[in-house]
């Protein structure tokens, strides 16, 4: 461990010359010191494992991670805003029963979008841009339709990626 690139074999773990007895009935000061060194080194090694495991474990919700929600939370004929990590998405469950998803960012100036139940349109709070359930611009300043996202149905769950 100490000289990893050494062609010499690793040093023995007990830091005493070979052949010398490792201790008698009563622990000497040297024994206590070796023991302390061993314990501290072992603790340090175990402690180092924590960040390593955390670093390598998959990130649950990161940028661009999928957004998952239950289909039951999106009744037919409505649109639901769902967020996960950095992302907000609009999940559309249209009257024909199809599920589609759009980015909840207005293509005009990047404001957040909301479903307006009264108008039955997706609406931008900033400049009144409105979009249909198919993501197309119905009125207002947005220059283009909403960005469509991929939807997967996993059991009764909607997974937007």
């Amino acid at each position, binding site marked *: 461990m100490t000289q990893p690139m050494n062609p010499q074999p690793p040093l023995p773990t007990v*830091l005493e010359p070979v052949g010398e007895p490792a201790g008698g009935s009563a622990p000497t000061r*040297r024994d206590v*010191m*070796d023991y*302390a*060194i061993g314990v*501290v*080194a072992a*603790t*340090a090694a175990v*402690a*180092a494992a*924590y*960040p390593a495991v955390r670093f390598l474990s998959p990130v649950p*919700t*990161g940028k661009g991670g999928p957004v998952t929600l239950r289909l039951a939370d999106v009744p037919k004929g409505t649109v639901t805003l769902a*967020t996960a*990590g*950095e*992302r*907000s998405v609009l999940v559309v469950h249209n009257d024909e029963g199809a599920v589609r998803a759009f980015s*909840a*960012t207005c293509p*005009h*100036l*990047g*404001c*957040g979008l909301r479903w307006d139940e009264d108008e039955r349109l997706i609406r*931008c*709070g*900033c*400049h*009144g841009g409105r979009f249909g359930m198919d993501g197309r611009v119905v009125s207002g*300043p947005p*220059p283009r339709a909403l960005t469509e996202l991929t939807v997967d149905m996993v059991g009764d769950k909607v997974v937007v990626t």
Partner: protein
Amino acid sequence: MAYSEHIPGCGAERSLGHLTPPSPSVARRRPARLVLAWLAALAALAVFGWAPRAHAQNECVRCHASLSEKRLRGAADAWRASVHGKDGIGCFGCHGGDPADPTVRAHLAENFKPHPTRQEIPVVCGGCHQDARYIRRFNASLPVDQLTLWQISGHGVGIARADSSAAVCTDCHGIHDILGGSEPNSPVNDRMVPQTCGKCHSDAAAMSGTKLPTDQASGWKRSAHAKALAAGVPGAPACNGCHGGHGELAQTAGSIGRVCRPCHKAEAQEVERSPHKTAFARLGFSDCVPCHGAHDVAAASGALLVSVSQGGACARCHTKDEKPQATAKLLQGMLDDAAQTGDEARRAANEAAARGMSVPGLESALAELRTAEHRLGPAVHALDPSLLEPEVTAVKDAAGVVTKAVAQVEGARKTERLGYYAATGLLALLFGLLVWKSVRVARRRPA
């Protein structure tokens, strides 16, 4: 009428009707001249060895392009690069003459008009441009109402009153070098419009005959509109955005509010609910200008509500009445409060980013904050604190989400630091023990 017979001249025969007798075809009407022209052409061919040209009918351009006098040659060169040149719309439509005649005799045609007068120009241009069927053949989406709109504009009215200093088509669009409005260097392209209008409207000498001010362009340059246009906001207005493409709106809009409304819908809706609605109508004020100004429209903020001395608008009228002043102060306080909360949240987010921390969900939280802040603007137009209150609360909530997310990450960072100190302590202890041991070993067995 079959247009294909004379594309270069288009429908100009009709529009120039008051200038020249209608002539369905130059060639058919004057066979003698045509014979002469051909003889001359043959003679020229014999003398100079010129090859016959494909565009034999536009002899004007061919000849003018070879002239040494810059004034005469320039027109032909400019035309070639223009939208008309590219579509093969020749000289005849505006200047008459005989484009088939390669000699100087072409200028002798009765309809030849070297310099259409300022009164004639709109009629000449309109001849083609208001003919929907004709225009569709070249640009299927070009409007055909330019002449009508110009006629009701200040410019058109001026010309009708025989004020020849009023602008006609060529003053803004150019003469021979006309480019389509979508061409970046066209004088009527959005980015060039303020300069094009300002050419006359910012020139005190040019405007001396009118009662018009000359500070519109400089005012606009300070405005929120100019900043938005520079920032590339789609639909941000230059002069034509409010005055109409052909200047028609300044004369004809019922009130300036009617001009602002199509873009500022949400604000206009709230204005309907404000106490100003009836008061302004009674006093004959326009909807927006008393507070926001005309050309130098400022980016609205709470400051607009305070006294004139501090850049506000309310006190311009409400000099004595206490209640409106108190309301203004209250509204301003609410707006400032919301702005401050939003700014603080953003600052916290920026600081976190500068320290290399990433806050999960920060982007969407900031977008929510931005949206909530955008809604304050329209809401304040009702001038009713109870209607503004929920929007302020929404901003504060959105800001709260941002701050909370940042605080969470900062907390995690603190925990990480504690872990670091623990690990450092452990390693330092190990180091100390090893050094101690090594010293003891050395002492026990001196070399």
